């Protein structure tokens, strides 16, 4: 039962990852991460 849950979880999140990549979220993540997030560092 637990094995089933583990592998189901893996498949579901792999699908989410693939969906995110197909929606071009990786590029957005790069764009966010290469810009200094001023509010994150306490400015703004």
């Amino acid at each position, binding site marked *: 039962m637990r094995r089933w849950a583990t592998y189901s979880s893996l498949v579901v999140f792999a699908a989410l990852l693939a969906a995110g990549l197909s929606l071009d979220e990786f590029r957005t993540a790069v764009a966010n991460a290469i810009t200094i997030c001023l509010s994150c*560092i306490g400015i703004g």
Partner: protein
Amino acid sequence: MFRLTRRRWVQILSTIALNPIVPHFFTGKIVQAQSKGVCVPVLNCYSCPAAVGACPIGTLQHSFAALRFRISTGVIQPGLYALGSLGIVGSLVGRFPCGWFCPFGLLQELLYKIPGPKLRVPKILSYLKYAILALTVFILPAVILDAVGYGETWFCKWICPAGTLEAGLPLVAANAGIRSQIGLLFAWKVAVLVAFVLWMIVSMRPFCRTVCPLGALLGLFNKVSLLRLTVDSSRCLGCGSCSKACPVDLDVPKEPNSPECIRCLKCVKACEVGCLDYQFPLHARREVEVAPADQDR
């Protein structure tokens, strides 16, 4: 002689591997590389000048903060990439990255080594991190929007002491342009950091146990992850050495796969009769020679 454990070496090497571009600390710039899109499964601020990866909690918040604005422009990006990355890591190893790879976890363990009175973290506070995860990472960024339709990164902006330490302080120190803009928010964030540092000296990993949204998220997978702790109760002597070794004060034989467990595996090492072990594909079961006297106990 002072000797580092294998886990401590992994923590140190992981901190260096996640933040290798040290010269940027002096220039006040951050790394501009495609690797910054890769979500690392630990709390490591991507505005840290030396960081080469993305903090998944920051990435998730940005996705939710921009969700409605992007939808209004026809772009659907609901943070599936970051959620999927975290879910895969969680399904494989649960909170293992907290115990072995997180630079902020390492800092907390080192600060706790400072001698002095020590306090336990009240168990009730461990539920706080789920509220923080739900509110500051998912709900508030998506719901409270500015005039343009953007939300805020609530956790990063108001709470995250890792961001203040790894990004805020170094950038303010090295970048005059940023230094000229600091105000009350920065003072608040430094105060939060100082409060946590003081707490870290007297309690073991208080941030991970009470506030960290990433720990909360990965901990949800502890019960189903491929990596899991096993207890052979027929061999357990009830000596309590595993629970004494546990940095998060778990009663290990009763709750080996608790969401609080950071998978440091100290309990496995502490168990002298080998009734505790971890399960993972290709991991051979630990065999411990037990003296006949011990078997009789």
